[in-house]
């Protein structure tokens, strides 16, 4: 990333020229917004994530996973042996089982960090390459800020003289541009904006890709997937927020859930020895113990009243 600071200095230096022609009514063609403080902040954030540190962390997490595996085995051996009593032995065995998912989690996190570090490394290299291109293209071939501003001043004066004078100028090379707009001509300014904009687009695209790889560890190699704020990476839609039972909620529930129509009353259960009910013979799976499941009488359907408004 050593190439980036001088290239950024060039970008900042030529930003005023770019902004003037970018917003100028005489400009032809499209362009992208100028380099901004937000772009600077994004770049600083990316440059602050060191792929080497992520790789080192991955190695440490691998070591932690190996240690955890040993610890789990040792605790399990204590639990399986004698000398600690049944209660402590049970707790040791439970703990040995509980440690296993943490081993897998540490290993998985290490793998994702390694993947993220590799993606970030290549993207930062690409960013540095774009920075060199930025240093070459940011001036659009003018090489001199003074000359560029002088041509811009001429363009401003042309606009002040009236739209006919300003926009009847053929703004293309070979159609008299040099005759009215000086040696550089306005096509030069258009070219400056185009080349500068191309660099900005390339930089922002590289930053987008780098941010995706950092924000979605382990998913940087899935170009077909797109992630949006609020989306759960593993499950898609975010689960519903906590339900608050208020009047609106009650109203919505009553639109979906209606009381069943009153049907014929079931057999009444009266106090005493109870009715003789038919049953279902069966057996419990995995045992030879038979069970008898009684058919219980359905209780009378209660009358449900809609809450008062």
């Amino acid at each position, binding site marked *: 990333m050593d190439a980036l600071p001088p290239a950024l200095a060039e970008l900042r230096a030529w930003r005023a020229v770019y902004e003037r022609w970018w917003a100028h009514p005489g400009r032809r063609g499209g362009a992208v917004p100028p380099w901004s403080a937000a772009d600077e902040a994004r770049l600083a954030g990316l440059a602050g*994530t*060191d792929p080497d*540190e*992520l790789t*080192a*962390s991955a190695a*440490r*997490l691998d*070591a*932690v996973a190996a*240690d*955890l595996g040993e*610890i789990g085995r*040792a*605790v399990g051996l*204590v639990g399986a042996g*004698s*000398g*600690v*009593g049944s*209660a*402590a032995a049970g*707790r*040791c065995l439970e*703990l040995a089982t*509980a*440690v296993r998912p*943490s081993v897998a*989690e*540490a290993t998985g*996190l290490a793998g*994702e*960090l390694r993947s*993220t570090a590799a993606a970030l490394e290549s993207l930062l290299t690409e960013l540095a390459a774009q920075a060199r291109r930025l240093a070459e293209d940011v001036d659009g071939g003018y090489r001199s800020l003074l000359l560029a501003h002088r041509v811009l001043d001429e363009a401003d004066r042309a606009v002040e003289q009236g739209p006919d004078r300003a926009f009847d100028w053929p703004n293309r090379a070979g159609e008299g541009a040099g005759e009215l707009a000086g040696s550089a001509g306005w096509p030069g300014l258009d070219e400056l904006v185009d080349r500068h904009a191309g660099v900005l687009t390339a930089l922002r695209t590289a930053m987008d890709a780098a941010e995706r790889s*950092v*924000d*979605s*560890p382990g998913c940087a190699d899935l170009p077909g997937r797109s992630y949006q704020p609020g989306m759960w990476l593993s499950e898609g839609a975010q689960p519903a927020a906590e339900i608050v039972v208020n009047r609106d909620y009650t109203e919505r529930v009553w639109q979906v859930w209606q009381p069943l129509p009153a049907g014929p009353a079931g057999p009444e259960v009266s106090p005493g020895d109870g009715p003789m009910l038919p049953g279902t013979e069966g057996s419990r799976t995995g045992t030879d113990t038979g069970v008898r499941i009684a058919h219980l009488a359905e209780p009378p359907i209660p009358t449900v009243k809609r809450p008062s408004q």
Partner: protein
Amino acid sequence: MRMELDPAVALAKAAQLGALVGELSAAAAEVQHATVGSAATQRRDQLALRLGRHAVELAMVVSDLRRYASASDAHERAVVAGARELERRLDVCPRLP
């Protein structure tokens, strides 16, 4: 009275598990200090927290074992002292006809 566990063995096991508590705590700290990038921070913290809880659970087992061993030892001594006292009193007790 015969005790279920040997206090000396329980203490030895407690020492062994105590060392594992230290290793679990060290693993939790190692995870907590790992640089993982902004997106994986929560996952890292949850893992460190889980390891810390494992360490606490194991420390409680160690504490129970040590307490048991201490109580068991005191109980054994009381039983031995009681037996000796009983023998002494029987010695001085006049024989029944």
